[in-house]
């Protein structure tokens, strides 16, 4: 009995943290929270102030009256709305396309036998370690020779490549019981039916994680759009906002307003799918 109890996973009283440890932990976490959130609160404060009032010292943290000029200028004089729509459109297009492409490839690698399977698996694994930033020079010439520079396709096509998604979905599919699809095949189901009607519904959590991961990767990308897109109207949010800084006299109020609004789409996505973000499915799946 006593032996059995010592092997249970229930915490025993003496392993509980002491009061001092608990206090330290809270102090550390409160400090970290302040450091995490302060920049966001500060750009909120600067976005509703006139830029030249930023240079007064000591600063007034909460302005007496709200100044909307930065936001008016953002929507009136820059392509901010276009950048946002472009980013969302390209992000969603890539996510949907990549979800299908990667799920199909992952299914073949996990469930089918074919010539060259090991070679392809090793190639995908190696490719994960290829730094994509190192590929911008050849990609620039490839996309240019296809006549796609400065088009949405220039952003969409190369983004469909990242092999991490295939490996992640494969680990989800491998963990499914094999009996299920064996019996489906015996009942005369084609591989496509096994894939679309059995495998896909069973790996839904994996698909959600894959979709979040793909969308985030696209939403945060900067170098490739900077290289591939010249027209301001076709530009994505990250590059668009950074271009606000290149004026001779930097309009900090405008930049803070843009930065603040740029956090909104991803924050909404986070709030909607918080469980998936915080469960660390994402990195856990990549690891596996």
């Amino acid at each position, binding site marked *: 009995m006593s032996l059995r109890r010592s092997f249970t996973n229930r915490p025993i009283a003496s392993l509980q943290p002491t009061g001092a440890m608990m206090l330290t932990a809270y102090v550390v*976490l409160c400090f970290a929270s302040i450091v995490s959130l302060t920049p966001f609160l500060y750009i909120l404060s600067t976005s509703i102030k006139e830029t030249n009032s930023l240079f007064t010292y000591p600063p007034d943290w909460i302005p007496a009256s709200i100044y909307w000029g930065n936001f008016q200028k953002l929507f009136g004089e820059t392509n901010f709305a276009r950048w946002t729509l472009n980013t969302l459109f390209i992000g969603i297009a890539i996510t949907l396309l990549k979800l299908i492409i990667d799920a199909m490839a992952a299914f073949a690698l996990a469930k089918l036998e074919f010539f060259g399977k090991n070679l392809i698996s090793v190639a995908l694994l190696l490719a994960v370690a290829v730094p994509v930033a190192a590929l911008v020079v050849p990609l620039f010439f490839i996309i240019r020779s296809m006549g796609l520079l400065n088009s949405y396709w220039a952003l969409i096509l190369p983004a469909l490549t990242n092999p991490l998604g295939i490996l992640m979905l494969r680990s989800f599919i491998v963990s499914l019981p094999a009996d299920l699809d064996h019996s489906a095949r015996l009942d005369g189901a084609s591989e496509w039916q096994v894939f679309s009607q059995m495998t896909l519904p069973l790996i839904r959590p994996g698909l959600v994680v894959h979709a979040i991961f793909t969308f985030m990767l696209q939403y945060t990308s900067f170098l490739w759009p900077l290289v591939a897109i010249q027209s301001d109207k076709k530009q994505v949010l990250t590059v668009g906002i950074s271009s606000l800084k290149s004026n001779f006299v930097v309009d900090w109020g405008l930049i803070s307003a843009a930065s603040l609004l740029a956090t909104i789409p991803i924050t909404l996505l986070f709030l909607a799918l918080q469980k998936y973000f915080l469960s660390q499915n994402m990195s856990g799946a990549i690891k596996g």
Partner: protein
Amino acid sequence: MLSTTEHRKLRLKARIRQNLTAYAFLAPALIFFVLFLAWPVVALLIQSFQTGGIMSPAKYVGLENWRQTFTDPLVVKSIRNTVVYSLMAIPAVFIIAMILALSLNTVRFGQNTFKTIIYYPTLQPILLAALMFTFVLHQDFGILNIILRAITGEPVNFLGNRNLALPTIAMVEVWKGAGFWTLLFLAGIQSLPRDLYHAAELDGAGPGRRFFQLTLPLLKPTFFFSFIFATIVNLQIFDSVFVLTDGGPVNATVTTTWYIYRSLFTFNEPGYGATLSFVLVILVLALTAVQTILFRERR
């Protein structure tokens, strides 16, 4: 009954069909993989032996780019800065994330709220994080400088100082990245078997010893993944450099990817960029291989 040859024929047919099916599933992914990943790596090597290509057709120049790459002080500096940056950013973010993960593991109330807040900066693009950091670092209205002025009376020019610029760029990565690694380490800690801790506790091991002799060694698989992933990502550092310092002051923050970008659009010498890119690919692959071997041996 089927004869042996007929049997063999049928089996061959079945196998061919199986292969066709599998490759039909793989085709879209393989096409994109070859076109936009495998071929560009090969193209890097080809372009490293060429000059021009943007305005004029590319010309073969032999080993000229390679000679240039290893003698150009700016290239050497860019590699050095990239490595130094990674050596600052990765340990710093890992240590801070470990402290935060242990703290989250200790507290009983508000764990989810703290998790959400600490994770929040991780959601933002690194470019946005860097841009927001100008509001932390700016000499006149940066919040850190407002605090420093209140304490010491002197603002610090973080990005204009040759010795401070690169650590400051690393600071952005730490601020943005800490939440991601915290949650990863926390998940690792929480998946460890409690029995071992009870046993260690009964043997009289205090919290410090339990951490160094149990938690850290047991988290080796997590660290393995983390080091490789962090190395691959951090050696490509570009966005924050581009928006905060653009390589300055006096080339103190010139990084490999910054140089590759400039080779294309400012220097008009994609051959240099391709050469340096190839070096970067080899560097990352080699480091990944070394890390894999090291972690395997110590297991």
